[in-house]
């Protein structure tokens, strides 16, 4: 009824190779965009922006970045927090050094700086594989956090060791600093997310993405059929770090406003984003969105339920939340190791046949 290839005739190559070849998918994509850009900004308030919308958008960017690396290129990384910190500090240094340049440019440049750092820490991946690599990326995590803590140049010699985002505007509207409206924050992150998602989706569909997947599935076989592991792995680290750097820059400048590196970009952040990718689904852009939404919403819901409705003490609620998140991850992995994206795929298959089951 809804989800049909039948009757949807493609007459040009261009049509055949578009991002969403099925009409229903395409319409759904435009509908989501219309709601995100046209409807939500009208109703958003500070609570929803700060508790749900902005973290979701930023984590979705980070999850897409990590998914490129883990899901598409098969290089497990636990250094996400460290790379986000690079993005945040690069953005901070740029914002304070060149106040007249638009923050939009700074965020993209921060992504670029992170990409360079990511490639640097990605180099060992040519020799080290699997879990050894995962643990090796922890070196990036701990070293970078230590670096930003110990070298005062990175936080402009501020007494508290914190970095604080100055007021910056895009087209005359504040997007960082205290005067920012909920809508501005939301829109700025949304534009970034759209750019990242479109980029990621098309990269993974194209030649680069196929090389990544070949490397993921078996790197030796890929090498034999002519995929250069050096360029494939390095581009994966580069693109992934670029996105993660953007996420880090936004997380610091738009969402937090002020950040302390160990607290905001610690190892917990790396795990959180890895969870998003796994729960959402490895090797799926939609999965990154789903995973980010799930893990942003879950704590908010639990907190409202346990503290708000049941009146339990907050420390107890925090521990129970930890238990529930942990248990849910395990349950998810048992029930659906391919993540929320797989549920979505199954639903689409069902929809394709519906209402006739055979």
């Amino acid at each position, binding site marked *: 009824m809804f989800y049909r290839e039948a009757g949807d005739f493609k007459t040009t190559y261009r049509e055949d190779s578009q991002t969403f070849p099925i009409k229903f998918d395409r319409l759904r994509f435009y509908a989501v965009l219309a709601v995100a850009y046209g409807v939500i900004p009208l109703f958003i308030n500070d609570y929803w922006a700060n508790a749900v919308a902005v973290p979701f958008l930023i984590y979705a960017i980070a999850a897409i970045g990590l998914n490129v690396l883990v899901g598409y290129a098969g290089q497990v990384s636990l250094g996400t927090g460290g790379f986000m910190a690079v993005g945040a500090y690069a953005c901070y240094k740029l914002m304070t050094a060149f106040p007249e340049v638009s923050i939009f440019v700074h965020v993209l440049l921060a992504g670029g700086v992170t990409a360079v750092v990511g490639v640097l820490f990605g180099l060992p991946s040519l020799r080290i594989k699997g879990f050894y690599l995962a643990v090796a990326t922890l070196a990036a995590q701990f070293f970078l956090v230590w670096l930003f803590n110990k070298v005062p140049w990175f936080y402009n010699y501020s007494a508290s060791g914190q970095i604080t985002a100055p007021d910056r505007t895009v087209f005359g509207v504040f997007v960082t600093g205290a005067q920012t409206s909920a809508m501005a924050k939301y829109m700025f992150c949304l534009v970034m997310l759209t750019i990242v998602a479109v980029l990621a989706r098309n990269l993974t569909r194209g030649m680069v993405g196929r090389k990544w997947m070949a490397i993921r599935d078996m790197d030796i076989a890929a090498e034999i059929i002519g995929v250069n592991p050096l360029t494939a792995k390095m581009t994966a680290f580069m693109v992934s770090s670029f996105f993660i750097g953007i996420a880090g820059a936004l997380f610091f400048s738009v969402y937090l406003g002020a950040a302390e590196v160990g607290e905001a970009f610690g190892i917990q952040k790396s*795990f959180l984003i890895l969870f998003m990718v*796994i729960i959402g689904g490895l090797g799926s852009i939609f999965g990154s969105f789903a995973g980010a939404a799930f893990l942003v919403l879950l704590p908010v819901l639990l907190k409202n339920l346990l503290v708000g409705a049941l009146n339990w003490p907050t420390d107890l609620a925090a521990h129970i939340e930890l238990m529930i998140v942990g248990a849910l991850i395990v349950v998810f*992995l048992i029930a659906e190791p391919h993540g929320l994206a797989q549920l979505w795929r199954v639903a689409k298959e069902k929809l394709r046949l519906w209402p006739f089951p055979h």
Partner: protein
Amino acid sequence: MPDQLLYAMEVTLNGLMAGVMYALVALGFVLIYKASGIFNYAQGVLALFAALTLVGIQQGQVPFAHLINAVTGGHLTHFGWTVPSVLAIILTAAVMVVLAIVIEKLVLKHLVNQAPIILFMATIGMAYFLEGFGDVMWGADIKKLDVGLPQGISDTVEGLTDRIFGYGFFVDNLDIVATVVAILLVTALTLFSQYSKQGRALRAVADDHQAALSVGISLRFIWILVWSIAGFVALVAGIMWGSKSGVQFSLSLIALKALPVLMLGGFTSIPGAIVGGLIIGVGEKLFEFLAGPLIGGATENWFAYVLALIFLVFRPQGLFGEKIIERV
């Protein structure tokens, strides 16, 4: 002898002792990885959980007191008795065995044949759960663990080195005990895996899962066994670390300290865990001593990882790991 050299020797000695502590945690990882190919991130949390349980039993705390109080509005805290250390340790070991059985039944059984990354994530999930569970069960406040291990600076070592070098080395009594315990533990584990029937089965499974299954070894029993042993090792590590720095959340972070040890020594080698631990322990203490003051200190957080990383670039399977052979 010049003072600097003596200091360096003292630092090295302390590094060796710290390395033993790391090796204790790494040992649990290696056991599980060998027997089931699971990279068990929860090992550190297991140690925390074991230590929390030990203190809880020892002091007669009411489990889940905080939760019960929140639901019923009561004021339960303690039963009002204390349990002797030895009995408490035995009870805690029993709890760890039960935990191993539960983990096998509820989690591992359902994840057979999944990709290693999925199993790894499952253990991270378990780590989160256990951390929350331990806190809900016994409360999250920092506890003092005292099972009668000697504390403070060893007078014997100080006196001895004073006589030889004219300068007394400061070594923690606890570190010496930990070293002795680690040696005993490794000896016991080696004897167990070499000479007992279960130990042989364990080695068979580690060698080849399918071949082991085909000669009638129960994989599930082996998994329960190996998780129980890992739980016991975690208990020992928990006692040592808990006595040293108190039982608190940061105890679970020792898992992160054990990871570079594993990389260096190889995931599949018990001697590797020990040697790796010693190298990391000495390396990071010496580096902090020599280079720390120049670049701002607190290098211990990352030095081990960077050392392991550089090392791995030259030898990707670690010091004692099995040679990686890849085929298309």
